[in-house]
Structures are given as structure tokens and as C-alpha cells.
């Protein structure tokens, strides 16, 4: 059962008012411009026992993604491709009110949105994750752990997932007569990535739109919308988060803002990952 969060009712009215005054002058209270992201930093290989990993900081929001590969049977309806499983956890380390326990609806929603962005964008070439067609494939576990929650974990999670995947090498395969043997201890091919995908979150406060809301801003947003893009500007996922509504015209504006922001993040991502 999904229940109205108990903190939703504490509307920091004064904060909102002063934020609106700032935005009237084209600037946010944190000093950023409306369509400006916080700085992104990526540390690849942060978790050395993962097959690939990345620590991502988006401002103070800190996310660690790790990739693990396991040999498994393919699903019946996709015998010729690997499996992808995405899991986001909002760790109790990350924020005072986060509790230990199985993922709640917020973590599950984040997991599923990141999963769909990775899947629908065809960022990963899953068909290259087959060891033996119909019998043995790689399952790609992407575990994303939020360490410090400072707003907009979704965009940070997508970046961390992509960075960790680009950091991943598959275990080595060895042809032995008719059969293929997996050498777990040795690294083989790189994860077959087609291109990255990014998610851009746009928040609405009164009549204003801003990108990459931080934790203070999240508390006073009317609502927000997240859109994922490929490098060729295809939209590969949309999710409206939280209570509140958009007009159709606002959705149009959001899309345009998000598309432009996606190009900048992709550029940053390519630079830091040394790709394309």
C-alpha cells in the first residue's frame, strides 16, 4: 500500500516565497542558474571487488554503483540475450530519516526508472552477453547505493550506472573443444556498451522550472518530471515524480529544457569516461 509520506505536510512556505523571489531574478538560492547542474565527479573502479564500479558525486549527492556478472540461464522469452537487473537502495547512511530494511516504494520506483532507461535506450548490447545461446548468458547486476542524499538521486543514479557499466569487464571465456569455460579470475572483454544514456530531472516551483533540484529545493517543489535521453536525442523514458501537476504546455517546456541539459551532461560524461 502506498501512503502519503508524513513529511509532505510540512510546506516550508517562507522558503518557497524567497525561492520565488530569487527565481524572478533568474537565479536560485544556491547560486545556480535555473538550468544549471551541480558539478559532476566520477571515480571509476571505486569498489574493487565489483566487475565494474563508479562513485558519482552530483554536488553533495553521492552514489556508488557496482556491477556484478553472474552466469545464468536466459529467460525463456529472450534466449539470445543477457539479463539485466537494477537495484537502487536508499541507505540509512544517506539521510537521517532513511531506515534500514528492504527497499521501500521510493527505492523501487528509482530502480525501475533507471532499469527502463538502460533497457529502452539499448545502451547495453544485451545480445553480446550470451555465452552459449539459449543456455548460458550473463546476468548483469547493477546495484546502486545512495551514500549521501542531497537531492536528485535519480539523475546521479543513472550516471553512476552508466559509468560503472563502462568500467566493467566481463570474465574471460576460454574455448575448450566444444565447450566454453568461464575464467572468473581473469578479465576479458569490455561490457558491450552502445552509448550512454542520461536522465534529466526538471522541477517546477510556481511558474518556474529548474533542473537538478537539490535537497532544499526538492522540499518546496510543486512537482517534477524526469526524462532520459540518448546521445541522438531520442527520449527513452519519462517519469513524473511526486504529488502535483503540470499543464501540457509546461510538459513541452520541460522536454525542451531537459533535452538541452542532456546534451551537456552527455558531453561531461563522455569526457570523464573517455568515450566517443
Amino acid at each position, binding site marked *: 500500500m502506498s501512503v502519503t509520506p508524513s513529511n509532505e505536510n510540512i510546506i516550508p512556505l517562507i522558503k518557497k516565497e524567497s525561492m520565488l523571489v530569487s527565481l524572478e531574478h533568474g537565479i536560485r538560492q544556491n547560486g545556480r542558474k535555473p538550468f544549471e547542474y551541480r558539478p559532476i565527479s566520477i571515480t571509476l573502479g571505486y569498489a574493487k571487488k565489483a566487475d565494474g564500479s563508479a562513485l558519482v558525486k552530483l554536488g553533495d549527492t553521492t552514489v556508488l554503483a557496482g556491477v556484478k556478472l553472474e552466469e545464468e540461464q536466459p529467460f525463456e522469452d529472450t534466449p539470445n540475450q543477457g539479463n539485466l537487473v537494477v537495484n537502487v537502495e536508499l541507505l540509512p547512511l544517506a539521510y537521517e530519516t532513511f531506515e534500514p530494511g528492504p527497499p521501500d516504494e521510493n527505492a523501487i520506483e528509482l530502480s525501475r526508472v533507471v532499469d527502463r532507461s538502460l533497457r*529502452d535506450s539499448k545502451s547495453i548490447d544485451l545480445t553480446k552477453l550470451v555465452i552459449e545461446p539459449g543456455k548460458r548468458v550473463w546476468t548483469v547486476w547493477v546495484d546502486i547505493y545512495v551514500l549521501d542524499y542531497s537531492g536528485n538521486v535519480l539523475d546521479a543514479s543513472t550516471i553512476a550506472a552508466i559509468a560503472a557499466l563502462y568500467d566493467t569487464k566481463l570474465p574471460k571465456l576460454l574455448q575448450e573443444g566444444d565447450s566454453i569455460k568461464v575464467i572468473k579470475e581473469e578479465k576479458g572483454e569490455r561490457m558491450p556498451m552502445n552509448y550512454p544514456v542520461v536522465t534529466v530531472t526538471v522541477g517546477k516551483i510556481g511558474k518556474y522550472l529548474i533542473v537538478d533540484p537539490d535537497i532544499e529545493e526538492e522540499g518546496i517543489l510543486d512537482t517534477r*518530471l524526469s526524462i532520459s535521453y540518448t546521445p541522438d536525442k531520442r527520449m*527513452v523514458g*519519462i517519469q513524473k515524480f511526486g504529488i502535483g501537476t503540470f499543464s501540457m504546455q509546461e*510538459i513541452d517546456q520541460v522536454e525542451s529544457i531537459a533535452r538541452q541539459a542532456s546534451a551537456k551532461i552527455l558531453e561531461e560524461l563522455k569526457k570523464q569516461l573517455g568515450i566517443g
Partner: protein
Amino acid sequence: MSQNQKPKLILENGLRTDGRKPDELRPMKMEIGVLKNADGSSIIEVGNTKIIAAVYGPKEIHPRHLALPGRATIRVRYHMMPFSTDERKSPSPSRREIEISKVIREALESSILVEQFPRSSIDVFMEVIQADAGTRLASLMAASLAVVDAGIPVKDIIAAVAVGKADGVIVLDLNEPEDMWGEADLPVAMMPSINQVNLIQMNGNLTPEEFKQAIDLASRGIQTIYNMEKETLKSKYIEFKEES
């Protein structure tokens, strides 16, 4: 026909697998006041999708320390009956059901005048009887009708439809093959009289141009559905608050 092979979604005559034109809605049926115990209830059928919804409340919340001082708490469950799908579904909630319960709650909350019922709860339960594409939106509409049936004031009733892309064509109100094999699925829910979108999601693949085309098509479909909803309610209630 094997489930592993994509069928043709747009036939040579330009029609869809169920004979509809790209911008044609599935047949719909709605009824309110279908349960005795619930304060509000409804059954909705969209094509072969069938949903029943019940609303209890506004009522006192237990335990009381969970009550919100300035507004009602909304509690929502979207659930699929085990026999509602092609393969039997385990009755315990899947991650998909948990996500959908959340997006439906948020969409529904955005339509209810929650400030009128401080310290109380409104419980909304939806059961999918038949799942044949579009269950989240049919559930949301069923919930919205049940809320009105319970006499709870809303900004507007919610009308909703999924648009998408099938064999390259932008289509209205996806059916199951289009949902499974199409290139994009874009559910949209609105309060039409105030032009506000309560729910929008997308999975799949659309260019920005296609996206614009798709939400335009959705808007038109939503208006038709909205009129049906109003008719359904008028048959029971003469008036309900409409803001434009």
C-alpha cells in the same frame, strides 16, 4: 504463434490488430456504486481490461500519531488478481505493483481537496480483474470515479489514456500486442477541465517530435473519455464541481 516473435501491429489496410484506426479508442464501460460496504466504488472496462475500485473514508486514522495535521492521508493499493493475467500471477505484491500504487496515489492525491479533511485518511483499493493493457490508467480512472462516488470533493475527475508508437505509427489507447511489441508506451492522465496532467510516464523510444504528436493525440482521447465519465456520474449525481 510463438510469444517470442513480434507480430505486425499495423496491418496493410492501416488498421491495428483489433481493427481500430490509429486514433480510435477501445470501447469503454463504467459504473459507480457497485459495492455495498465501500463509501464509494466503481467498475470500469476498457477493451478487455476490467478494474474494480473501492474507497473508504474520509475516516479517522489509526494509530493516531500518523495523522497529518493539515490534510488527509491517502492510502492506495493497486493489485492484480492472480487470474487477471495470461500466466497466473502470485497474489503477493510485485515491484511493478508497488511502483504503480505509488504513481496512482500521487496522481489521485493531486486531484483530491485533501486540505478539507485534516487528520483523516482516505483509503483507495483497486483490483485488476482482467489485465489487457492500460491497467494503471483504468485503475486510476476507476479510483477517481469511486472517490467522487464517495462524495469526496475533487478539483476535477481524472481521465486518462495511453498513447504510443507501433510499427512507427503514433497510436491511441494501446492494446496488449502494442503494449508488448510496440516502440513506446506513454500513459497520460489529466484533469481535463483545468488542463493539468496528473500522471505521465513513458517507456520505449520516441523522438521529441513524436512525443509532441503523441501527447496531442492523448489530449484528444482524454477529452472523449472525460465526457463518458461525466455522463456516468450524471446518471447518478446531477451536479459535481467543475473548474475550468
